[in-house]
């Protein structure tokens, strides 16, 4: 095993996982609700890129369309699935977010196809380069770079902008944040929009590994994001990032060490380790903000 190769694998997988997890936890932190339709934001982004693939636009424009549609789908999730029932009950919201997820998947099945559809990718994504003595796919380096940039932007947004600070306030004490004059709907829609931005970015990187999109593509990222946030700490943004990289470390280590015939059971090993981590730290590795009543 080459250590450079290993580190590159962990960082590129971890970067994607961390972005997935952040997109889920940004909404969870404020509403204390898991958005089950999160994976479908990735799906929407993938199909958007497929639909515009014949347009002849430069690839970056097509990728931009994918991200914009993921943001739009994120905001639509708020308006259609969350807002109408938010004040009623937690169960109602969980059900509507499930329903919204199923609706989007079925729309893809019905109007596009159950079979994989090719997504345009720049030629660069399939190339490899030699980096520090190892041969590695360029898209892994792109993933690392994009993750670093996105995490940087995200951290700046949450630390230094009025909206970001208001969102952090709302995540610790939603009622008090509203009593500062911070509009609840603005904060929630912003969280969904950021969630969509992260999902759209992840979609490009994630689909870049396989090159196709299917209606069920969102399930794995949702699961990854969920596990990463659970081990990192559901109520902490840095925790989501830590959880993402840790999960990538576990997955990559297992990929490197498990014998070939056990590799198909990798997820079982991963989950066992996750359970061990949770036995050790039931609240996740990074504790959330001190006060944390629900709305």
């Amino acid at each position, binding site marked *: 095993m080459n250590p450079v190769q290993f580190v590159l694998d962990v960082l590129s997988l971890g970067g994607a996982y961390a972005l997935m997890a952040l997109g889920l936890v940004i909404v969870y932190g404020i509403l204390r609700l898991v958005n089950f339709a999160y994976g479908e934001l990735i799906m929407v982004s993938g199909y958007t890129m497929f639909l515009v693939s014949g347009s002849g636009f430069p690839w970056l424009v097509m990728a931009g369309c994918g991200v914009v549609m993921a943001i739009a789908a994120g905001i639509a999730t708020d308006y259609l699935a969350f807002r109408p029932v938010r004040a009623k009950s937690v169960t109602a919201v969980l059900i509507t977010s499930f329903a919204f997820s199923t609706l989007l998947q079925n729309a893809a099945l019905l109007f596009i196809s159950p079979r994989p559809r090719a997504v345009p990718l720049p030629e660069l994504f399939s190339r490899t380069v030699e980096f520090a003595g190892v041969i590695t796919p360029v898209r892994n380096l792109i993933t690392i770079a994009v993750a670093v940039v996105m995490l940087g932007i995200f951290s700046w947004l949450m630390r230094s902008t*009025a909206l970001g*600070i*208001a969102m*952090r*306030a709302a995540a*610790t*004490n939603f*009622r*008090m*944040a*509203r*009593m*500062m*004059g*911070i*509009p*609840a709907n603005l904060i929630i829609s912003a969280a969904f929009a950021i969630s969509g931005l992260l999902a759209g970015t992840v979609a490009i990187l994630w689909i870049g590994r396989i090159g196709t999109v299917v209606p069920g593509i969102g399930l794995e990222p949702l699961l990854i994001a969920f596990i990463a946030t659970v081990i990192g700490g559901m109520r902490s943004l840095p925790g989501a990032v830590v959880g993402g990289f840790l999960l990538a470390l576990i997955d990559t280590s297992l990929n490197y060490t498990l014998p070939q015939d056990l590799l198909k059971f990798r997820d079982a090993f991963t989950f066992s380790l996750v359970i061990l981590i949770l036995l050790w730290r039931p609240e996740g590795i990074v504790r959330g*903000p*001190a*006060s944390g009543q629900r709305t």
Partner: protein
Amino acid sequence: MLDIESLEVSYGAVRAVRGVSLGVRKGELVTLLGANGAGKSSTLMAIAGAVRATAGRVRLDGADVTGATPENMVRRGVAAVPETRDVFPDLTVAQNLQLGAFTRRRDQAGVIHDRETHFTHFPILAERQHLPAGNLSGGEQQMLVIARALMSRPSVLLLDEPSLGLAPIVVDQIFDMIGSLKDSGLTILLVEQNAAKALAVSDRAYVMRLGRIEAEGPASEIAAATELKSLYLGAEP
């Protein structure tokens, strides 16, 4: 300025506020007294829009604002400091103040000016402005939440038990501050357990019991009415 008419608040089967009517005129400091559980906080939070009123009317300068959201009430000039003294513990003191001015984001110069004014009144907040607010003592947190509420430049301030659980010297500081806020012309509705100190700075007072107003009058009269003391002093001697 603030007119409450037949306000009712219920939590499930618990009828916390049962037809409360009260008024606060412009520039007045009015205290709401009452034993624990009388419904004072529920009244205040219903006015602030943080708790839903099940019946009744809230009027601000004649406009019906019943059922307005908390963010809307702030924009209309009503700032509230709940008794839970909720600082945002992970945000710095300066960021907490900045959030108080969320509705004034377009007036950065004014916001900075106000923040500096609060810093001169509370040098301790200036000293600790870059620390997480969760690190402050109880008294400092109380000063912070009041200063934070003032950052929205409210015309009405709702204060819920600002002296709760604080050391006597800090209590005096808080009451000095309330006095000077009143002198600056701010309209204040104050809920207090410390009746003597509250009545000393107030113009008028209401006494609540079991969700109803039992008595009202000029602060000096309420303070002199010995028969009322058992109502708001609870079990205290």
